[in-house]
């Protein structure tokens, strides 16, 4: 028993070094919590790399203050994320949290973040929950609302005269909202709407069912490795000859294209960003990202990069006084910065108002397979939930 006491005391002492990290002023402390491992890991890694690149290009600073970016892997598990958030808010006292990829990780932990009055900047998912009547002054969706990009694809499929579309997505909020967004704009018939487990990698059974349903086209939203496997297996089964694939930009990003190769050519997808968008900020971003990491950036990377630019601008505007949360929030909502995607401003629900483009995967002159912007689907698009937001 006496030994038990000493064991307890020893373990308490082991924790002490961690206790001393907290205080230090004159810094912007960013908690960057993202999915860095597993099938969804590529997305988080792209975001982290882009965010750190932006900070590095800025001389290690954000808004003139040295940036202290604490990167943590959430392993795509809400409980892991929840513990990381506890550390960020209660131990490290960060000024901002950002970086989460998946809505099923973000949604369970967001109440904790918001309850502590910490600002969250979403580098990716923009769930309906915080777009409508539960919009929150501390929640900023810097990428898009979940329905925007699939909605744009629904519009495209109308224009192309597709009448019978098969839908497949993972069974999580992002997946369900994506299909809801698609259906909000798409006017034809739905052959079937199938939800698979998030992280599923073998789609043999689903592909056989798709083929048996004989749709005109397939709209799929399968982020990360899921989409890569789906496209490969779909083409291997020869199903693409009967029904073409359409997708939001997530499953036609540069990582997916690189992994799948030739079978991707010709796939249409929508996005708020493309590597070939012609503006100075984007040109710099694409060039610097390739120089730093030796690969093409994805839309995820552009989103995280834009978050860093936004923070930089806002902190600069308030003269580095990050303790003044109210001022920081106000500066963020005004969002005066040159985004890689071009036009960008916040709606009253802190979700973006921006343009959406149609892209096509093609092989460029140098034999490289990549996306080409072939048109604009929506201009100055306001997400459909903003009206219900009571802010301002």
């Amino acid at each position, binding site marked *: 028993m006496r030994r038990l006491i000493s064991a307890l005391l020893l373990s308490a002492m082991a924790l002490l070094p961690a206790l001393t990290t907290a205080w230090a002023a004159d810094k912007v402390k960013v908690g960057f919590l993202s999915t860095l491992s597993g099938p969804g890991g590529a997305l988080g890694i792209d975001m982290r790399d882009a965010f750190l690149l932006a900070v590095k290009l800025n001389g290690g600073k954000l808004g003139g203050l040295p940036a202290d970016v604490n990167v943590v892997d959430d392993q795509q598990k809400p409980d892991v994320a929840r513990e990381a958030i506890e550390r960020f808010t209660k131990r490290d006292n960060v000024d901002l949290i950002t970086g989460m990829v998946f809505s099923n990780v973000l949604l369970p932990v967001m109440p904790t973040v918001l309850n502590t009055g910490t600002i969250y900047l979403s580098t990716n998912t923009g769930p309906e929950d915080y777009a409508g009547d539960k919009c929150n002054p501390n929640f900023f969706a810097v990428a898009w609302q979940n329905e925007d990009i699939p909605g744009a694809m629904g519009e495209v499929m109308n224009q192309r005269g597709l009448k019978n579309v098969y839908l497949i997505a993972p069974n999580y909020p992002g997946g369900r909202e994506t299909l809801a967004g698609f259906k909000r704009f798409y006017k034809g018939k739905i052959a079937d709407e199938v939800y698979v487990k998030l992280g599923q*990698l073998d789609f*043999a*059974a689903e592909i056989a069912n798709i083929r048996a349903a004989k749709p005109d086209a397939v709209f799929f939203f399968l982020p990360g490795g899921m989409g890569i496997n789906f496209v490969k297996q779909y083409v*291997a089964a020869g199903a693409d000859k009967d029904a073409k694939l359409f997708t939001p930009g997530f499953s036609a990003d540069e990582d997916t294209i690189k992994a799948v190769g030739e079978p991707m050519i010709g796939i249409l997808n929508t996005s708020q960003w493309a590597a070939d968008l012609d503006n100075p900020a984007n040109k710099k971003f694409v060039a610097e990202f390739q120089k730093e990491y030796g690969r093409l950036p994805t839309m995820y990377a552009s989103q995280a990069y834009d978050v860093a630019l936004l923070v930089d601008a806002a902190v600069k505007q308030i003269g580095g006084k990050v303790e003044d949360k109210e001022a920081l929030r106000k500066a963020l909502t005004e969002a005066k910065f040159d985004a890689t995607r071009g036009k960008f401003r916040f709606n009253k629900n802190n979700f973006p108002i921006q343009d959406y483009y149609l892209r096509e995967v093609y092989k460029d002159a140098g034999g490289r397979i990549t996306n080409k912007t072939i048109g604009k689907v929506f201009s100055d698009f306001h997400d459909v939930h903003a009206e219900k937001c009571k802010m301002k």
Partner: protein
Amino acid sequence: MPLSLIAEQLLNGLQLGLMLFLLAAGLTLVFGIMDTINLAHGSLYMIGAYIAASVIEASGSFLLGIAAAIAGTALVGVALEMALLRRLYQRSHLSQVLATFAVILIANEIVRMIWGSQPILLNMPSALSGPVELLGLRYPAYRLVVIGVGLMTAILLYLLVNRTRAGMWVRAGASDREMAEVMGVDTRRLFTLVFAIGAALAAVAGALLGPLLAVQVGMGDNILILAFVVITIGGIGSIRGALLASLLVGLLDTAGRAFLPYLFRQMFPAVIAAEAGPAVASMLIYVLMAAVLYFRPTGLFPARG
């Protein structure tokens, strides 16, 4: 429901079942002969997949990748058996579960250190990346090859166990260890050999499934549980039981995922069907396992009396 769909799903089930058999065969032999639970079997599968992926990427040859995976994983298996498993044969099942669980943790991290956290996405050999026509059915060529290799391995293993001297020892060992020792079998060498064969079979499954799934840290953790379901249903120690149970589980799982939602939609209101179909489908094989154990507490084909 079109006949071609049923046929296609049957093939899918067969493919899953045969891959499960490759995993389960090694597991059931180790279990049957050495009375040892080896959770680290899933790690051998993962290591096989990683070796295959690395060699294929470096050399461009798929066959070379599989050969390297078999040889490399068998070596890892031998090392694991001699360094650790040997010490566990006489220990309780609890100790075996925990020690081999520790091996999973260690193996996952070592793989992460060598290959990183990112999944390796392996492409199928280009010659096999398209579909083939099969009695009016378009089926992925690669999956057909997987089925073929699985069948061949199963037959080879059957012949090895039932027709060779080493196989006779293995069967003797599985049904009565003391008897095997009396017969003059060098059980230490036999155990190592069996372990190496089990590791090699797991590597074949890992290498073949690599291009279909993703080669990633922890990939063996869930398929390991499926393999345990298989050997428990089949009866621990029985190769025949493992084969039949693999096919049963493979077909049931695929059929459940493919047809149950459809079936439920015919039987229940859409709201309930959409929920219950996938739920029941994903639990199906575990329900089967619990039911088998309830009525036959030692599986379908117990190797021991």
